[in-house]
């Protein structure tokens, strides 16, 4: 009964969102479109990090590297040969990359697959490591990728980066891919394999004693995570139309960790909300830096103040919403109804369980 109702509600919601996105695509100010598109891309980063860490407990800091591989592959596949030749004016591009030109969607998917392949090079050995050692190994891996991007000029154009990447990414692509990513992650997490992933996170020894193949499930989460992170990277490249290795500095991984913790470890909904708020707040705070006039009083803008306030806000959320905005709960229709209908009753119920 309720299940059927929820299914219909979900379908209706998806339709409404799709129509809204389509409408926004046509009518919304490009500035807002860009912010919303970026929100979707950061959401994908956060959701994929949540899958590998929040659900599987593997502290992988390789996201900047994943994004870099996805971005470069997608960019090189979608750029026109002429554009590539113009870009590689210091050292010519290798011929096989020069001549390919693919439509956006296949390029994105190939980007995702290549990301998986590259990430497995370090993932297969490194996933044996635990906790912080895994973190530093994957962080190092992502820096190695960046160094390679800088040095392999005939493949990547080095520090000069790529420009003139067709700006294919739009609201529909970004949110559509996010939807696909969330769908896959949610289905995975809710399946028997998801239970196994959570058991690996909670207690590796016990999980193994219950027949869970640790490596298989870690690598499973890692593959799905890197695939979608690669796609998010591809979306980013085709959104800003120009990339260089500096975009994928390891600090990107820190940002993603921050966003995910803010949203709540183990909550995909939380990741999306948090990533969107992150992107939007960064923009909302901009007026702080320009001159503010209150009557005749002029407060000169202090450049850089925005980032200070933003980091304070970030810390406040981390310090006071310790389980993140959503804890480990997801958005469900039932929860929404409960929230709307009987907030008091819900309190009592939860009190009892806890």
């Amino acid at each position: 009964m309720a299940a059927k109702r929820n299914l219909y509600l979900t379908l209706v919601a998806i339709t409404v969102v799709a129509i809204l996105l389509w409408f926004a695509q046509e009518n919304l100010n490009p500035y807002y479109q860009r912010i919303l598109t970026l929100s979707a891309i950061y959401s994908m980063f956060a959701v994929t990090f949540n899958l590998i860490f929040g659900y599987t407990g593997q502290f992988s800091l390789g996201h900047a590297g994943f994004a870099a591989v996805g971005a470069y592959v997608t960019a090189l596949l979608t750029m026109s040969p002429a554009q590539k030749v113009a870009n590689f004016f210091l050292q010519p591009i290798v011929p096989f990359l020069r001549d390919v030109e693919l439509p956006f969607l296949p390029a994105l998917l190939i980007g995702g697959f290549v990301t998986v392949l590259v990430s497995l090079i370090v993932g297969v050995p490194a996933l044996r490591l635990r906790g912080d050692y895994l973190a530093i190994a994957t962080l190092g891996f992502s820096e190695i990728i960046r160094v390679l991007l800088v040095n392999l000029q005939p493949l990547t154009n080095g520090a000069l980066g790529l420009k003139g990447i067709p700006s294919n990414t739009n609201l529909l692509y970004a949110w559509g891919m996010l939807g696909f990513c969330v769908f896959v992650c949610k289905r995975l997490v809710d399946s028997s394999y998801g239970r196994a992933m959570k058991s690996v996170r909670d207690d590796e020894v016990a999980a193994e004693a219950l027949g869970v193949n640790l490596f298989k499930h870690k690598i499973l989460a890692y593959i799905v995570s890197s695939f979608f992170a690669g796609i998010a990277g591809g979306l980013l490249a085709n959104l800003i139309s120009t990339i260089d290795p500096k975009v994928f500095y390891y600090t990107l991984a820190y940002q993603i960790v921050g966003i995910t913790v803010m949203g709540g470890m183990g909550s995909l909904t939380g990741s999306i909300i948090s990533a969107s708020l992150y992107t939007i707040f960064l923009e909302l705070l901009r007026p702080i830096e320009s001159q503010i006039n209150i009557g005749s009083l002029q407060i000169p803008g202090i450049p850089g103040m925005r980032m200070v306030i933003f980091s304070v806000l970030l810390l406040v959320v981390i310090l006071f919403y310790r389980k993140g905005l959503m804890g480990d709960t997801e958005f469900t229709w039932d929860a929404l109804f409960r929230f709307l209908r009987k907030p008091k009753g819900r309190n009592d119920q939860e009190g009892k369980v806890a």
Partner: protein
Amino acid sequence: MTFEAFMQNLMNGVSLGSLYAMIAIGYTMVYGILRLINFAHGDLVMLGAYWVFYGVAIFQLPWWVTFPIAILLTTLVGIIIERSAYKPLRNYPRINLFAAAVGVSFLLENLAIVIFGGRPKAFSRPGFLDSQIKIGNVTLVSYTLIIIVTAIILCALLIYIINRTKVGMAMRAISKDLETTSLMGININHIITIAFAIGSALAAAGGILWAVKFPQLNPLMGMAPGLKAFIAAVLGGIGNVWGAMIGGLLLGVVEIMLVALFPTMAGYRDAFAYAILILLLLFKPTGIMGEVQAEKV
């Protein structure tokens, strides 16, 4: 490579490595006690250097007054960070602490840009650190030796504190088992604060010497040493003071030697450093000096 060139490079590597080591031992100590990757550590390095800059440039203080004051101020900042950002999260998953460290680091860097300005500043070396020493064909500047000596002294001091004093014993106890230690009537908060204070002081000392060697200050100057020190700490076996020292020296020497031997491969230097790290971890997952922690089943 001639013997002189080799010695020259070796000295340069050891002096760079000593700086890494000095920052890494602070890193590793905080990690050993709280299991916290304190990414804000690198920013304390930056703060230490800036305090000295302001002491000398604005207040015209002599270096022997500024250095202790800078270390003291940085220690204070370290304590404030620990009390306000890390302590409230102590009983939460470690990822929260990690995120808080990222937030703190973000805040310090951006504050530094606003307050100190983004333009790199010149750090003036005290004269006695600037004289040239020639041993055979190897030219050294006096700071090179002073950095190495300071690093060794500080490391020995720290090991003395950890192994021989009451506070150090409490620290070791906390790193083994925080809960049990608190049951034994030891004031955990107090000890952790002391650990942070020592770590921050080391970061400041490292920062000042860093600025002596590389007399250019900018708000993001702590990022690279912070990351390198972290790698050094992991190389040596994170949580192990001697390990951090060895890891730091090793990293410094390898970085210099790699470029000296293969100048055309200089662009790949960091990639090699990381590759070595990853390979080492695969064969010895707990670093050079790390103990294997058998999990109790």
